[in-house]
């Protein structure tokens, strides 16, 4: 236990230590906090769903919780159930095998809810073209508030995307009624 405590002291506080990239991050942090307070009370709860990502975007979402970015320190945290969430963070090009799971997860989040897509795949730019197994764009299944490109986007960019979504004013009751249907290739938006 002594060694453990010593290591904590020795490591110090790593959040935003370097002046260059982390200074920008700090500004985002402060703005983010105000917006959260306005719209969601004291915290923002995010539910993540992987709809067929290669796992690189997941690695960057994991990194958001490391001491450098310290997302949880701002009152933003990831939750296990969509019913506890304010925001859905979607990665992947939507494999057709995940279409129903994506819809159900979206429906399970209480209104008002926000959707942020992370990564090239989720907004039709990725290496996985739409084909027999892949829909290729999250916005064809559920309404998207912010679409963040990148392969994968850096944790800082993911933070700015979350911020951008919080600034979007949403109606109290969601008017979008999703239905489970088969994807047709002709109906490309």
């Amino acid at each position, binding site marked *: 236990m002594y*060694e*453990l405590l010593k*290591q*904590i002291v020795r*490591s110090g506080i*790593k959040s935003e230590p370097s002046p260059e990239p982390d200074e920008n991050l700090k500004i985002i942090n402060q703005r983010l906090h105000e917006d959260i307070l306005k719209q969601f009370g004291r915290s923002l709860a995010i539910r*993540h*769903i*992987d*709809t*067929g*990502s*290669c*796992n*690189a*975007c*997941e*690695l*960057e*979402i*994991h*990194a958001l*919780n*490391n*001491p*450098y970015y310290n997302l949880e320190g701002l009152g933003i945290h*990831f939750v*296990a*159930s*969509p019913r506890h969430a304010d925001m859905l963070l979607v990665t*992947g*090009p939507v*494999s*057709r*095998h*995940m*279409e129903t*799971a994506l819809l159900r*997860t979206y429906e399970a989040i209480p209104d008002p809810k926000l959707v942020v897509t992370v990564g090239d795949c989720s907004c039709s730019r*990725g*290496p*996985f*073209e739409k*084909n*027999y*197994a*892949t829909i290729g764009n999250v916005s064809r299944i559920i309404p998207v508030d912010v679409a963040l490109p990148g*392969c*994968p986007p*850096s944790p800082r960019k993911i933070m700015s995307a979350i911020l951008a979504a919080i600034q979007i004013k949403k109606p109290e009751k969601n008017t979008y009624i999703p239905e489970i249907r*088969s*994807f*047709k*290739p002709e109906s490309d938006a």
Partner: protein
Amino acid sequence: MTDLKELNIELNPLPGAIPATFAQVNEETLRTTCRACQESGGRLVAIWGTDAYHQASQNRFTVHIALVFAQGLVCLSHPILNDPPSCTDLGDIFFPARRMQRALFDMMGIRFTAPDQRPWLRHGAWPETLFPLRKDSNESLFYQNTPDPYSFIQVTGEGVHEIAVGPVHAGTIEPGHFRFQVVGEKILRLEERLGYTHKGIEKRFESLEWAEGVKLAGRVSGDSTVAHGWAYVMAVENLCGHTAPIRSLWLRALALERERIANHLGDLGALGNDGGLAFGLSQFSRLKEDWIRTNDLIFGHRYLMDFIIPGGVNHDVAHAQTIQIQHEVQIIRKEVQHLKRIYDEHAGLQDRFLMTGRVLPDLATDLGMIGLAGRASGIAFDLRTQFPCTPYDALNVNMITHHNGDVAARVIVRFEEIFESLRLIELILAKLPQGDVRSDIPEPPSNSIGLGWIEGWRGEVFVAVHTDSRKKPLRIHVHDPSWQNWPAIEYAVMGNIVPDFPLINKSFNLSYSGHDL
């Protein structure tokens, strides 16, 4: 392992960076060769199929099977003569063949005479009469959802109940379904169902030139982008009879070892967290962030994507940057040594790790386990040691193994592999040859095959590239080591309690995307 000469089959050497031979066999020889391989301590690497529709070939479908013998890879090609196409079951010889055969039916419609005929990669997104990898498949017919009945094997008895988990899990991880049969807290049986992230990668490969294909290969599994990228270009370079400049091969190894360390750092943190020590996650994720920020500075990408290209690497590493890496290696080594002491001495953590999720060596051999999880269960195989390609033949890699096969063993192997990879990085930087890092690859021959085989952090990644009569890609098969190790988790969790499942699963940390393709 059996001597290849005793097999009585005509083996043609496949030139390239790995020892590989190729043979055409009939059904009987296929079985006897597989049996000889299994009995002599060899094992199955991958099963895939090709469709020669439109090609001037006598038979349309061929099943290909890659095996490991003491002398290297043996690729057996078995032409399928019957219609509808079917092939003898190899699941009784090689355990991992079972799911691969089911997947091959879903993708290409070659039916194996196996007891389990349930679909594997196909869910309800397209009818079971359609096969996406067939050359005459009409994609517009695929867009009709069909019922998706899937019968899990149930356990009955007093107090037995079922827990269904997924495809969406509680944490930030990839999707898959786990069906537990439990009594009280104790797991009697686990059955996995994967395929949720299937996105038609192998079909997509067929329409891509080599330079584009390597980008896709780098995104088969985002945490193994170097391993998959290298295996892909190795297959292409072997196919074309080309050797990339020596310096680029050393830089590829540098990238591969950096990828290994990044993933091990991340996993050790996550395992600490799952074992109830959040301190471990904070510390290791800090080290990982430092490590991948250096990747970003030197290689231009935090996860090293698109660094490896056909014929070399994308850019050189300057001398000043090698000094920077050497400096970083020393810091990370010291930090990890310190954290290892804390992990070793933490009674609560060791209590969660020890004897949890055990796969003993005999079972691991039967299951055909490979890679990191295999080595933690006494399977002494590491491509960098057994069949080292350049530059590993000059590095004398120390293989790390353990015989306990529990979560603790997989943690120890990760720690030791970090130290070994740090040593390798120092050695690579000290011996890095001078020269170009890019070259043009020649045109590939027609109707040929090239194989790539690389020991990634999770295990060996295998890629087979076939060309057609117009020298274009006919079929690209990508095989992630997760195929071999996913079934092992079903055995590892037996008799453990449900709350230990996340810890056991994390200690394997297998790829869903790399498996589902």
